[in-house]
């Protein structure tokens, strides 16, 4: 029984790593630019598909990950510049616009890659399983994902808290007008942060596509779970996204294991508790 429990803990943590990749971009984009971008799920899916095709064509998983991320950086930039920019701070408009965009991307992706579940091919080094202390056997890739997630989280955290750019972003999340008043090129900052967020979403797609597979509808499923992470962790908080991802990832894994038919219901729990006790999330800023 306990080995299963431990296995689920690892499952949950690997899912948390993936969720963090998607949620961190969303939450920082909102915190800094006050933009709600519901197309992040579609970015994940499209990035995954592009990475898949690249990996299959070149035989390199790394290229796939990189390519998937870069493709979304380009798409994200175009979307920001030609669509989202016109919505100002109107969140309703942003939600509808980006949902519409997600529909377009999803439908086009369906046409190009079809409706079957596709799996991103893994390099031989990451295939198969490895043995953990205690005799547990676990898929190598998912373990690597946890490591990857930790590395990315660590790098982002360093970037956010230890670099001058990170300090500017943090200041911007707290008070945008003040940052603009200091003469820093706010527009360029936004473009860079948005590009990073897009890159993370795109690579998440490739990485996720290697074990969750890619299929029509996946863009909404990942988005909703990422939203729960952001709600629980608080909009605009990177640390909150980390904690939220872990909470949600573990709940999801245990939920699927213990109550498979009600696993979605398990997600409802923490949100309801939060709403009752602290409507602003664990570490959130004013919406």
């Amino acid at each position, binding site marked *: 029984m306990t080995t299963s429990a431990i296995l689920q803990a690892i499952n949950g943590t690997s899912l948390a790593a993936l969720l963090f990749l998607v949620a961190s971009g969303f939450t920082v984009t909102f915190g800094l630019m006050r933009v709600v971008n519901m197309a992040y799920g579609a970015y994940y899916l499209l990035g995954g598909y592009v990475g898949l095709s690249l990996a299959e064509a070149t035989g390199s998983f790394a290229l796939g990950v990189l390519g998937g991320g870069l493709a979304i950086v380009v798409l994200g930039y175009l979307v920001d510049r030609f669509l989202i920019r016109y919505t100002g701070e109107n*969140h309703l408009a942003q939600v509808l616009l980006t949902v519409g*965009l997600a529909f377009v991307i999803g*439908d086009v992706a369906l046409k190009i890659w079809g409706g079957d579940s596709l799996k991103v091919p893994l390099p031989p080094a990451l295939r198969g399983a490895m043995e953990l202390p205690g005799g547990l056997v676990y898929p190598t890739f998912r373990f690597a994902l946890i490591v990857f997630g930790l590395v990315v989280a660590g790098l982002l955290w360093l970037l956010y808290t230890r670099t001058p750019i990170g300090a500017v972003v943090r200041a911007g999340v707290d008070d945008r007008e003040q940052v603009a008043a200091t003469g820093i090129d706010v527009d360029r900052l936004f473009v860079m942060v948005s590009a990073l967020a897009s890159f993370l979403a795109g690579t998440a797609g490739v990485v996720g596509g290697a074990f969750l597979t890619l299929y029509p509808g996946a863009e909404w499923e990942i988005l909703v779970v990422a939203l729960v992470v952001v709600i629980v962790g608080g909009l605009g908080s990177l640390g909150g996204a980390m904690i939220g991802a872990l909470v949600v990832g573990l709940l999801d894994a245990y939920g699927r294991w213990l109550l498979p038919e009600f*696993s*979605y*219901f398990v997600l*409802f729990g923490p949100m*309801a508790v939060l*709403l009752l006790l602290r409507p602003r999330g664990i570490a959130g800023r004013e*919406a």
Partner: protein
Amino acid sequence: MTPARLAVAVALVAAAVALPHVAGPFWMGLVTQMIVFGLLALSVDLLLGHAGLFSVCHGSFFAVAAYTTAILQVRYGVPTALAAPAGLVAGTLLGLVFGLAVRTRGVYFILITIAFGYVVWGVAHRWSSFTGGDNGVTNVPFPAVGSWRVESHVEYYYLALAAAALLALGYRVLVRSPFGLALRGIKGSESRMRTLGYDSNRHLYAAFVLSAVLASMAGVLYVYYNRFVNPVAASFPVSVEAALMAIVGGTGTIAGPFIGSAIILGLRNWVSSFFELYAAVMGLVFIVAVLWVPEGLVGLALRLSGRTARG
């Protein structure tokens, strides 16, 4: 009501009543759908256009009501007289629970309703032993109360039309009441309303539950028309589209959500007949609507004729 508006209303009513006699079953079915989804859009607009809250989970109440009624009728042989109200009650109960969301505002509220909506979809999708999973619940009979029973789609069309008319009338009374005005006040300035003595959270909660009731009624009407329900009814696209219908038609009005419903459903029907990527087209409609027609068609028409949109 001005003479011009009255004339338009009469013409519309006449057209609606005459429809089954001049058009085939396809059109009648389409208009029935427009009515049902128009009601759903209306329920979303009670919150959006009057209270200023953008809820994207109304498909949940719609679906829960539909599923409850369907399962009771099909699996347990419960008659309409009990199954229909039960559906309504079920959707309302869910509304009472999801109403927790009004403890938040703005973006948080939107995100939470999205997540709530997904929970219901997920349960409908995964709890296949009870909900039938992706296959849903089929073979829902036409409604029958006592000796009266609906025998055809034409009869159901008139039933839906009458129900919608009654609900729209009730909605009109609601939005013109002190409660309705209070909602619009909260939408305008919650801080001001609180200092005037209004407990805004309570008002918003009440509005949320009322909108869930309306969405549930739409769900019951839907399941008897469609004769079947599956998880798609609770899906995010349905909830989002309901909001879009209200926006395209004109928020804060009564006709707006129905007009929006007619446009969206009509457009989808037309486009899907010749273009495979019609979901992409609907996505483009979202984008266009947001960027170029934010006040909706009713708002646009009123603005062009020199008046403001007053519900």
